[in-house]
């Protein structure tokens, strides 16, 4: 167990290093921060001075080392737009994103699990058909468009809920619901096929042959095993949620990390873009580390490897 944990931790660290490296090279090699910082029409001399001031005249490797150290310390530079450390700007928005993504993950997983279990247990019934159609539609719908449609119906036409912003539970309903649809569709489809696969396993027959009651067989022998791929899926979904919230936060004017990153892109505010991407990636890596650990708990075969 401890070896497994160590390997996973090491992998997570390598992944964080890799992401920070990608962030550095993409932004430093492809765009010159000095040009972006100066107003249009600045002289070459101004540019050189600024470059030297920022350490941009140094060899790339040296710049990389400096940037790595800075980034690892959470220093991503000063936001051009806000005139404050970029990391602070991003961190402030973190709770809102957590609130939204967390709501969607919890409700989406719950709804998806129930729907997927119904579809698998009621094989060949209308219930299965409805769940599967809904899940297929849910997966094919662009999340942000669904958000717009929900605003159209519940805010514009019915006037029940606010079109955007944050602060109250009412503000959370529509964006939360939008993201939950995507989560539950993926979970429902995966759980259904996973349950159907497991139901055919020999050890389920063994469990029945022992005289165990149906609910024991279902929870301990079928669901317990079907859960393993679902947990992996939740790791992937967390990434798509963090990415998807970028668009959803824009649609619903939700003051989260995604929205501020999009605004930063429009304003070419590189420190904020880098800080946002690095932070979200770090959270994603952390979530996947947790998923891996949970996976180890759920599947003893993995643990010993």
């Amino acid at each position, binding site marked *: 167990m401890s070896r497994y944990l160590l390997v996973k931790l090491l992998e997570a660290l390598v992944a964080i290093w890799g992401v920070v490296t990608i962030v550095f090279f993409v932004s430093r090699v492809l765009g010159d921060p000095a040009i972006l910082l100066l107003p249009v029409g600045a002289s070459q001399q101004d540019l050189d001075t600024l470059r030297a001031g920022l350490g941009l005249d140094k060899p790339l490797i040296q710049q990389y080392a400096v940037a790595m150290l800075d980034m690892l310390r959470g220093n991503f530079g000063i936001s051009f737009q806000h005139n404050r450390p970029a990391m602070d700007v991003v961190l402030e928005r973190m709770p809102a994103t957590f609130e939204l993504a967390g709501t969607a993950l919890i409700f989406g997983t719950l709804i998806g699990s129930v729907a997927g279990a119904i579809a698998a247990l009621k094989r060949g019934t209308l219930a299965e058909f409805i769940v599967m159609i809904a899940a297929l539609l849910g997966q094919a719908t662009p999340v942000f468009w669904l958000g717009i449609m929900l605003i159209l119906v519940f805010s514009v036409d019915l006037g029940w809920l606010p079109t955007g912003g944050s602060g109250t539970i009412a503000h959370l309903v529509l964006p939360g619901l939008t993201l939950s649809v995507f989560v539950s569709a993926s979970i429902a489809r995966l759980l259904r096929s996973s349950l159907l696969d497991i139901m055919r396993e020999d*050890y389920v027959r*063994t469990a029945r*042959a*022992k*005289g165990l009651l149906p609910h024991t067989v279902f929870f301990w022998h079928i669901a317990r095993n079907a859960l393993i791929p679902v947990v992996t899926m939740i790791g992937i979904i967390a990434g798509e949620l963090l990415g998807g919230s970028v668009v959803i936060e824009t649609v619903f004017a939700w003051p989260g990390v995604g929205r501020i990153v999009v605004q930063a892109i429009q304003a070419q505010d590189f420190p904020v873009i880098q800080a946002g991407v690095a932070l979200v990636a770090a959270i994603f890596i952390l979530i996947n580390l947790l998923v891996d650990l949970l996976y180890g708990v759920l599947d003893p075969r993995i643990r010993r490897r």
Partner: protein
Amino acid sequence: MTKAPLLEIRNLTVAFDTPSGTVHAVNDVSYSIEEGETLGIVGESGSGKSVHALSMVGLIATPPGRIVRGEVIFNGRNLLALSQRELFDLRGREIGFVFQDPMTSLNPVLTIERQIAEPLRRHFGMSASQARIRVIELLELVGIPDAEQRARQYPHEFSGGMRQRVMIAIGISCNPKLLIADEATTALDVTVQAQILDLVRELKRKIGTTVIWITHDMGVVAGLADTVQVMYGGRIMESGPVRSVFYDPRGAYTWGLLKSLPHGERRGTNRLYQIPGNPPDLTQEPVGDPFAPRNPFATDRCRVETPPLVNAPDSVPGHKVAAWYDLRAEIQRMEGRP
């Protein structure tokens, strides 16, 4: 004087409704087994040997499976008329199962202890610590060393033979009246197979359970069973005391199976016999003797009328065969004209 048999099956017929037609898996199977007896059921895959056993206790999926007719009287009760709840109470408690391929028949994510304890806690209402004592007792009984420690491990930490021992421990955990072993040694290599068979013989001596041993391997049955029953195409083709069926077979299929066994004295001189033709297509409505298409001795009657399972002429009592032809006469004729 005659005690009622422990298990009596009458006209059991099972079908599966599949997209490509109805599969007649078990057709009119009738037999009985006395308490303490060991019955070997032999047949190739698709002969209905496993399906009929699973269907007795509601372990086949319905649909697509369907019990067309029949009665299964176990210990005075018709199992096919039991409620779901009564079946749950019966399985594992009165009838224990040992399945083939211990690799897939044990749940990979639960400890061995938990998997053996489950039926104990379910049927005897044992507490976790009571069950634990019994689990270790069972593991020792089936010959697993370091039982205490091994109980905490998972199936993937056990070898194939050890896993099969665990399966047997699960099967006998509640001291069932009847133990049904379905291809229990098939997935194991020969030496391990021999060890498991020794274990079963020893367990039978110690606890005296009635056993139905289902296998495709004639050799296994010879060493273990009192009576043997040969199935083909969902029917019983021949049954009787092991010695009589082995040394004096009356069914052409049994004869073919025995000929295809490697014999000590024949080694190297003769090639192994292979039964010609393919297994029967069970989606066809069964007509006549199912083995007739592959039977060199088949008569016209074999192809149109199903032979009943009756006492074989001039044999020991209890030796029954379903055949319109006379195998002994045919073989004599064949060997008379080399």
